[in-house]
């Protein structure tokens, strides 16, 4: 159940130090003489979330300056067109339907403030008083339009409803008829990341074209995925004001209900071409925050104390994928041997010492970053956690046993199959994705030491996807095992019952599987699709749900359709010299992204004197 009252922030600590005003548009002043107590602001991670910004929080006439890596004059605001979509500004210009707190896996209300889910109907309540920047109020009609477009666009919701079953029943209520029962987790996941960014003009026309059986094209011939919108009619607490080649200016939307939490007038996005330039701008204070930026440890160490880092879990990570039709990698023992040889901890440390976590137990469940000394992914396994194979890595004895049982022999330091063919493969990855490259190189080292002749092949991105992964041109590759969703269903589906499972991994729909935790037990047929169908509808939090997750996790753990290696965190930054902001431990700071969500709830405010 959602709670319709928005959480609010705490009173900013006053500092008796005048800040240097950044003249609008002037270059960043850089580090301000004498650190302004970066540690005594509210960012010590212990802030509660039940206080409010003081009513006398002075309005401070300074813009929050962030970065944009797209050429500002080419940016547009149609989220369905990925080329040059204004990704970061979009988080401020548009409100999202619901917000997701990654650390506690909970949903916070956005445009949708309440939801009620039964077997055949979902009822959504729409927040009152949120204006379109063009003047009208956001209503249930708008939300229904968004959901219907999502279905036509191929979004997750299309699995359990149709566009005809979505209806605005009154001004603030949307009803979604369900064709199959669906759990609350699955339904809310399908809303995640959706923004209220489809004003009547031009999207109604596109929707009607879809409804008439067309491809969703406007009368000007622009389709949903190639339309560009230069001046958005948004719904967020900041609205589009101006732009030039280098900078986008957003102004606070006074009419927005969250505007009372915001004590600064402008949000600016400045163009920076690359990571290096962003590191420098963050270091000198030219910018106040960056939504997402990869910062290697040696650079991070050079940041001043005012730069506060937020690590956010995107439920995203890389693993090893196999072509299951290959005579070697189609054999379970070979995959298991590879899993026993690769030391995931070593791989994660090499590819991102501060930002990668090794998968603790390869089960396909995301959540491998420790929270209070616990691995969230393992919670799903309950007290059966010890029954799963951990594949510790560098376990060459076990790997050798497995290969020998599959008819391989070691000859001249290299493993050969019964026909005398060496066990060798190129492991492919996009050459420009440095974390993948680093990971592959370490894995190749482990495998080579053991006698499997692996070789790393760096590929151009388009070639990797066009020729290798989706063009049937790989034996083994580095690829994601994740779907950016915390709920295990989605990863299981991706690995066991999806277009990728059939076309890319060529993994069978039905396998023979021993009972959970009994690798030597009698094998029985296991059909992933049936189990997933049950998981789609099972009641969230029930024993049945846990049992289904454990069975699917066992299938991944024992048969290794994909070998999950590591998970990643996104790094997000806010500078505290001119801003009061809560610390990373606050659950609101775990919403995408601190610099765009926290202002809405009064937890990122401009420092007055």
């Amino acid at each position, binding site marked *: 159940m959602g709670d319709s009252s928005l959480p609010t922030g705490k009173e900013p600590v006053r500092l008796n130090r005048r800040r240097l005003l950044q003249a609008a*548009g*002037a*270059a960043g002043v850089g580090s301000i003489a004498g650190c302004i107590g970066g540690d005594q602001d509210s960012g010590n991670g212990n802030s509660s979330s039940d206080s409010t910004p003081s009513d006398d929080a002075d309005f401070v006439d300074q813009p929050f300056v962030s970065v944009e890596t797209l*050429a500002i004059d*080419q940016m*547009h605001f149609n989220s369905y067109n*990925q*080329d*040059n979509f204004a*990704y970061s500004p979009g988080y401020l210009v548009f409100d999202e339907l619901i917000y997701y707190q990654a650390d506690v896996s909970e949903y916070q209300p956005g445009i949708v403030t309440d939801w009620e889910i039964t077997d055949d109907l979902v009822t959504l309540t729409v927040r009152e008083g949120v204006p379109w920047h063009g003047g009208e109020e956001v209503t249930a009609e708008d939300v229904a339009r968004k959901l219907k477009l999502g279905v036509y*666009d*191929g*979004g*997750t919701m*299309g699995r359990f409803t149709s566009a005809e079953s979505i209806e605005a029943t009154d001004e603030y209520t949307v009803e979604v008829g369900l064709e199959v029962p669906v759990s609350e987790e699955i339904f809310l996941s399908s809303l*995640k*990341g959706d923004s209220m960014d489809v004003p009547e003009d031009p999207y109604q026309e596109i929707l009607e074209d879809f409804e008439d059986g067309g491809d969703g094209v406007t009368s000007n011939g622009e*389709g949903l*995925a*190639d339309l*560009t919108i230069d001046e958005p009619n948004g719904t967020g607490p900041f609205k589009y004001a101006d732009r*030039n*080649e*280098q*900078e986008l200016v957003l102004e606070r939307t006074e009419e927005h209900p969250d505007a009372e939490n915001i004590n600064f007038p402008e949000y600016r996005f*400045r*163009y*920076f*071409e*690359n990571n*290096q*330039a962003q*590191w*420098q701008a963050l*270091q*000198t204070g030219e910018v106040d925050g960056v939504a997402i930026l990869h910062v290697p440890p040696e650079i991070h160490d050079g940041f001043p104390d005012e730069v506060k880092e937020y690590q956010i879990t*995107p439920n*995203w990570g890389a693993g090893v994928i196999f072509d299951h039709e290959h005579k070697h990698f189609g054999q379970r023992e070979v995959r298991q041997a590879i899993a026993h040889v690769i030391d995931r901890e070593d791989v994660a440390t090499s590819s991102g010492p501060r930002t990668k976590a090794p998968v603790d137990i390869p089960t396909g469940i995301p959540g491998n970053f420790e929270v209070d000394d616990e691995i969230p992914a393992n919670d799903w396994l309950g007290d059966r956690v010890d029954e799963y194979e951990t594949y510790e890595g560098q376990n060459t004895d076990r790997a050798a046993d497995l290969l020998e049982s599959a008819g391989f022999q070691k000859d001249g330091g290299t493993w050969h199959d019964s026909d005398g063919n060496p066990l060798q493969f190129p492991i492919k990855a*996009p050459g*420009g*994705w440095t974390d993948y490259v680093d990971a592959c190189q370490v894995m190749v080292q482990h495998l080579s030491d053991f006698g499997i002749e692996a070789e790393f092949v760096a590929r*151009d*991105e*388009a*070639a*990797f*996807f*066009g*020729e290798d992964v*989706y*063009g049937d041109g790989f034996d083994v590759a580095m690829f*994601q095992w*994740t*779907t*950016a*969703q915390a709920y295990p269903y989605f990863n299981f589906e991706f690995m066991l019952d*999806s*277009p*990728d499972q059939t076309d890319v991994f060529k993994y069978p729909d039905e396998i023979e599987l021993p009972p959970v935790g009994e690798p030597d037990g009698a094998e029985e047929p296991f059909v992933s699709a049936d189990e997933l169908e049950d998981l789609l509808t099972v009641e969230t939090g029930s024993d049945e749900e846990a049992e289904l997750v454990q069975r699917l996790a066992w299938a991944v753990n024992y048969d290794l359709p994909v070998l999950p290696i590591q998970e990643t965190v996104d790094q997000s930054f806010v500078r505290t010299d001119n801003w009061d902001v809560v610390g990373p431990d606050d659950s609101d700071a775990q919403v995408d992204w601190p610099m765009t969500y926290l202002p809405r709830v009064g937890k990122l405010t401009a420092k007055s004197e």
Partner: protein
Amino acid sequence: MVRYYIKRTVQLLVTIVTVVSLSFFLIRFLPGGPADALRAELLQNNPGMSQAQINRRVEARLNIAPDDPLLVQYTDYLINLSQGDMGTSTTQGAPVTEILASAIPWTIFVMATAVGVAFVIGISAGALMAYKEGSRFDSTATVAAIVTNSVPDYIYGILLLWILGFQLGLFPLGGRYSGAVEPTINLLTPMQTVGFLGDALRHAALLITSVVIFVWGGWALGMRGNSIQILGEDYLRVARLRGLSERRIALRYVGRNAVLPMYTAMLITVGFLFGGSVILEQIFSYPGVGYYMIEGLHRRDYPLMMGVFIVITITVAIGVYIADLTYGWIDPRASADGGSD
């Protein structure tokens, strides 16, 4: 003579058409197409997208790509090109000519400055080395010239960027000018214009320096060789015997005759630097012509890649063409093919 001009002009046109044709087919044989590049991008930037959504977008991208036979596409492209239409970039959402028109001036600015500075340094150093032939200065400078000329310019680029840009923070790490500076070139507002030009120069400084370090040595060695050769000429002895001043001899007799052969090399270098800008502009995130080449390659944006290819080709070809046609006129010692009519 006229026949030679006509022959060179025909050669020029044939060269350009050949390169354009080769590029057209070669880039279409690259592994992976625009749709695959888009898929890579979507997966990297939108991990939350469902497969169906990704497929829909990839299909939309495929619909933009013409599905005529390659030969038809090729003839269409040539016809459009002859009318000055390079097509629309599939990733930048703008006509290729527009993108290039905004990028070319920046590349010219950087490269012309770099070549100019390198030329002055190289010629002066070369002349001095020749003058002090055999001295310690000469041998040190020769070694330095050979070493700096043997290391590619992008290596200097990375080093300069790391040390002066990142570690010391003396220079910006990318871009053509600061976000906070309004591009102004206006005689009525001299202060803003100077401010903007200074800012632009500061952004380009490391890129220019990388090229200068790489190029000067070649000029210096060339100049040194030419000068030493001339210093041994009989007419120089005659000039000395006539009692002409050292200065006059150095500038009129040695300098002039030594520099002339460098003229051709310089024109050709300008052409090649356009091609060389590809890697450097990527390193410095400097959106000039070369930068868009990599962008286009990375995202399989065929029209954009073709556009950059054509610009680079034409620059090199025309550089050589002008050098050929004008050299005989600059340096009468070189008689053109077939001599005078």
